[in-house]
Every structure is written in structure tokens, then in C-alpha cells.
């Protein structure tokens, strides 16, 4: 059986333009030949430092960037060939939670709007029953349905991230991409959100692609670890193995540099 998500030799370049005519004079090879797989229900931790291409990889998987070459396959089907209903189904299957919940929620929309916007677009809810659906989703992420008519500014960072997760869950995804989803949160709140993500994984059989620079988070939850550097994967393997016996010098450097009180 093919993996849930499979990426083969993916390349995403950004053009470098110069001069008044904005001629393309080169390219930033943000993602430069990445292959990886996420099995159904698996949590994969993608680690690397800023600028290594991990966010570009996420954006390419979400089809927010067009890859230069390579393949993205969901259940073995090449996503680039998808059109119409099949493409919409892909967008439902792969959802994302971003780092900054202050930037990712439209301040002019109520929680109800934010959570159900995608459901309406995909025909998963109607204006008549969306309130009910939204209340269920808020319950899923540990928020009270009383909050549906509030605006984002009324919420703390942790609560906003719960709203962002509810919105991602609304479309019934099978893969949730978490791009530094807990990095901006305080320690005490971070633990709440990590527990929530673990619960949701159990409840919905979700797979995670967890993008982070925080090795503690990855060690806590990832089944497999993928280490990226300068647009390429330098090491990947079962989490325990990569942590205990890192093979690549860069992985060893990352592990040695991570400051934790429990070393």
C-alpha cells in the first residue's frame, strides 16, 4: 500500500530578479530534491534551522507554491494531475496550522466564520447547520461553544491556536501540517496544545508533519524524524534511532547544541 503522503525529489526554487526589467538572474533553491513519506496516522518531525527550506516544503505540499520539479503523491496519486473535485478532496485531506495565531486568524471574522468558512466552501456544512458543526469542533479543541460569536482579539495565544486547529479539523483532514505550531506559545500553554494534538491524533487517526526547530517537541511526539539542511534532507529515520545514534554530522551538531535541563 502506498504511504498517505509521498514526496519524490521535490524542488521548489524562487527566482532572483534584478534590474528594471526584473530579469531572472538566478534562483534560490529553497527545496532542492527532497524525498519523504508520511504513513497514515504517523507523526513525522521535520527539523532544521531557519532558512533550511522546511516552510517552503510545507507550502509546496499545500500547493501554495508551485514546485519546479518532482512529485507529491497522496495515496499514490500524483497531486499535480488533480483537477476539480479531486483537487478539492486533496485540499480537504491536507490541512495546516501555522506558527503565529495572531497573524493567521482574520481579525474581522468571528470564530464561527473562521471555523466554518472552509466547510461552506467545500459543501460540508450549510448556513443552517454550521453553528452546530462549529460547536462540535470547538468542543473537540477544548473551547466552549459560547465563544462562537467572539472575535480573535478576545483570545489568548493558546486559545487562538485552538481555534486555528479547529479550523483545520473542520475539513476532516488526514494529514495535519503543523508549521512551528507551538513555538510562539509559552511553556505552560505549549504543553496544553501538544496534549490536544496527541488526543486529536488518537481520536481522528490523524497523521502529522510537525515542522519545528525544537528538538524537545520532536523527541516528545515524532515517530520518525527528518532533518533538513540547505534545501536537502541530510538524515531521516525512526525518532529513537536518530536521537540515540545520529549518523549525519549536522544532526549530531543540532543535538549537541540543544540546551535542555534534562540532558
Amino acid at each position, binding site marked *: 500500500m502506498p504511504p498517505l503522503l509521498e514526496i519524490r525529489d521535490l524542488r521548489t526554487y524562487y527566482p532572483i530578479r534584478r534590474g528594471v526589467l526584473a530579469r531572472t538572474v538566478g534562483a534560490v533553491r529553497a527545496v532542492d530534491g527532497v524525498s519523504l513519506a508520511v504513513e497514515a496516522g504517523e507523526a513525522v518531525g521535520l527539523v532544521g534551522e531557519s532558512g533550511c527550506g522546511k516552510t517552503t516544503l510545507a507550502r509546496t505540499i499545500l500547493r501554495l507554491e508551485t514546485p519546479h520539479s518532482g512529485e507529491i503523491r497522496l495515496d499514490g496519486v500524483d497531486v499535480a494531475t488533480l483537477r476539480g473535485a479531486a483537487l478539492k478532496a486533496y485540499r480537504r485531506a491536507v490541512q495546516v496550522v501555522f506558527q503565529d495565531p495572531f497573524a493567521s486568524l482574520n481579525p474581522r471574522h468571528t470564530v464561527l466564520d473562521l471555523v466554518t468558512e472552509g466547510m461552506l466552501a467545500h459543501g460540508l456544512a450549510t448556513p443552517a447547520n454550521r453553528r452546530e458543526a462549529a460547536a462540535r469542533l470547538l468542543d473537540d479543541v477544548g473551547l466552549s461553544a459560547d465563544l462562537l460569536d467572539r472575535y480573535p482579539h478576545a483570545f489568548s495565544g493558546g486559545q487562538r491556536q485552538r481555534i486555528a486547529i479547529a479550523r483545520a479539523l473542520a475539513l476532516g483532514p488526514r494529514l495535519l501540517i503543523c508549521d512551528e505550531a507551538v513555538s510562539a506559545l*509559552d*511553556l505552560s500553554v505549549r*504543553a496544553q496544545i*501538544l*496534549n490536544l494534538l496527541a488526543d486529536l491524533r488518537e481520536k481522528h487517526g490523524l497523521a502529522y508533519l510537525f515542522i519545528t526547530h525544537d528538538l524537545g517537541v520532536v*523527541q516528545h511526539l515524532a515517530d520518525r524524524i527528518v532533518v533538513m539542511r540547505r534545501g536537502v534532507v541530510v538524515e531521516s529515520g525512526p525518532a529513537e534511532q536518530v536521537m540515540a545514534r545520529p549518523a549525519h554530522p549536522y544532526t549530531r*551538531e543540532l543535538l549537541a547544541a540543544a540546551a535542555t*535541563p*534534562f540532558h
Partner: protein
Amino acid sequence: MPPLLEIDDLRVGFATDAGEIRAVDGVSLALQRGEVLGLVGESGCGKSALALAVPRLLPMPPARIEAAAIRLDGVDLATLSDHGRRGLRGRRIGVIFQEPMTALSPLHRIGDQLVEAIRLHRRLPRREARGEALDWLARVGIADPVQRLRAWPHELSGGMQQRVMIAMALVHDPDLIIADEPTTALDVTTQAQVLELMRRLRRGNSGLLLITHDMGVIAVMATRVAVMYAGQIVETAPSRELFARPGHPYTQALLAALPSAATRGRRLQAIPGQVPSPLAWPTGCRFRDRCSRAMPRCAAPPPLYTWGDGHEVRCFLAEMPGGAGDARGASRPPAEAPGSNEPSPAAAAPPG
């Protein structure tokens, strides 16, 4: 001999439309020469306000700083004139800020900013100051320092900018260094390099006040730790002692909430609720609403109890017969001191 820095009952308030924010609400602490005091806490706990109140780097108004005393080598800073205080900043007190991109002037070259910092407190011909700036760039590990003197801040990476900040804070060999989240904006490998640099370049008998939210940075750097919550210090202890025997339920909860290899496959012990609002701190113990061990008497504000050698805890549990023992039992006991390499087997056992 008086401590290098002595803060007695410091209060920092900020006037806002919604009322006064009491960011720091009665903090006393002392920093000895040679010591690295880590001040740790979550956002909004007042740690940065405290750090910036010492060199008076807060804009007043809206900030209001009150203290019984802030003494540097026994001299109360309040008795100094503005001129006298300016003489301290940079020369005897060096400050390293979190975001070098905003702390460095974008309109001046790196070399000019260093030269200005040097000549601010020393009458030195420009040429000599330039030579000294060059030495400092080399000392903080900047490759090709001659070229870099002419660079603009935006041409340097975050790690390089922070190295320049460190050079600028250290050019006058200050007695007291205050570093406010110096590595928060940096990647882990860069963070390790910058921390190493701060350790190496600091004169042995100077004092470092290191503000951070990162327990890992504390473990690597601090000799002593003060934990802040809601504008107050809730626990102080030698660094090893704090990780081995955290006394305050908040400290225990913070350490238990850290995701790591030891927490694999288990739920993290999250702290319920939110950090309280500085506009209206809770009465009594400020952690009481989120504390799993709160008692009726926590409605009254607990004092700081001495709970061992150099270990103070703001919690009534420290007073109760066996209470401290219970508190120890309830902590996740990473029985080993930080620095050893294996995750402690004790850390994997369910707490309590």
C-alpha cells in the same frame, strides 16, 4: 562586602488606557560578583521590565519605577544624578538585548557604532578606537573583521548581529552585564555559539543577569536561578538545586511541562488556565487558580520561605510539616544535575 547588585522591593508600573500594569510587583534580589543569575518566567511575568528598570532603560512615562533601593556595589543608584547614571550605562553596566536588529542603528555602519560606544566613556583618538573595535569583532568571532567594520547591520545574519551586540556591551569591561533573552531570536546551533561566547568573554568577577523563558538556557548558563510569576519572584535556588528539587508548584509544573525524550508516549503535565492579567493580579497566591495543590489559606499572600541553603520558595507548602517533602515528591525529579548526558530514569516515572 556588599553584593554587586542589590535590588530591594522594586516595583515597575506602566500607565495604559486600561489602567496601570504592575509589571514588577515587589521584587528583591541580590547578584554577587562572579555569579550568573538566571531570571526565568513566561511572557508577561515582568522579567524584562525588571531587567530594564535597573539601568533605567524604560521610557518614563509611561513607565514608573519605584524601589526601596537599587544598589551597585553598595551605592544606591537613586542618589545619582541623570549624568551619573549615564556614566554607569555602558561603562559599569552592559546590556545585551533580545533583538539586535532593533537594538543596532540601521543607519550607521557596525564599526561606527562600536567606535561611538567606545569613545562614549573614554577619550580616545578615533584611530585607536577603530583599532579596538576591530579587536572586538575578531574576539566575538566575526570572520573578516576589517570588511565587517564597514558593514551595515542588515548585511549581517541574526547571529552575527548578536555578536556585535555582545562586543558593544563588553567594550568597557562592565561589572554587571544584563542580557535580556539574548538568544531567543537565534537558531539552536547559533544559540549555543552565542552562549559560549558570553561565557568565555565575561570577566570572572563580573556578574551576569540573564533573562530568559528557556529552561535549557538556564541549565547551561546559570549558577543561580530566580523564577518569576505574575510580577513576583516565587522561587530562587542554586541552578542544580532548582532542577533537582524544585520547591514551588509553579516551578515543578514548568519543568514537568517540558516536552522531551523522557515524555515520549505520555501526556505532558500541562498547567491549566492562563497566565493572569497584570492589570489585576489575583489576590493571595497568584498561582493559586492554576495550582493543583492550592489550599484555603492560599487566599492570603504567601511570603518567601527559606527552604534549604540559598533556596527560597513563595509557597505555604514550605512551612507545613512534611509539606516540603510532599512538594519534593510531587515534582518530576530529574534526579541528576544538569550536564550529565542520559535522561534520568526517574524522570520517566509518573510524578506524584
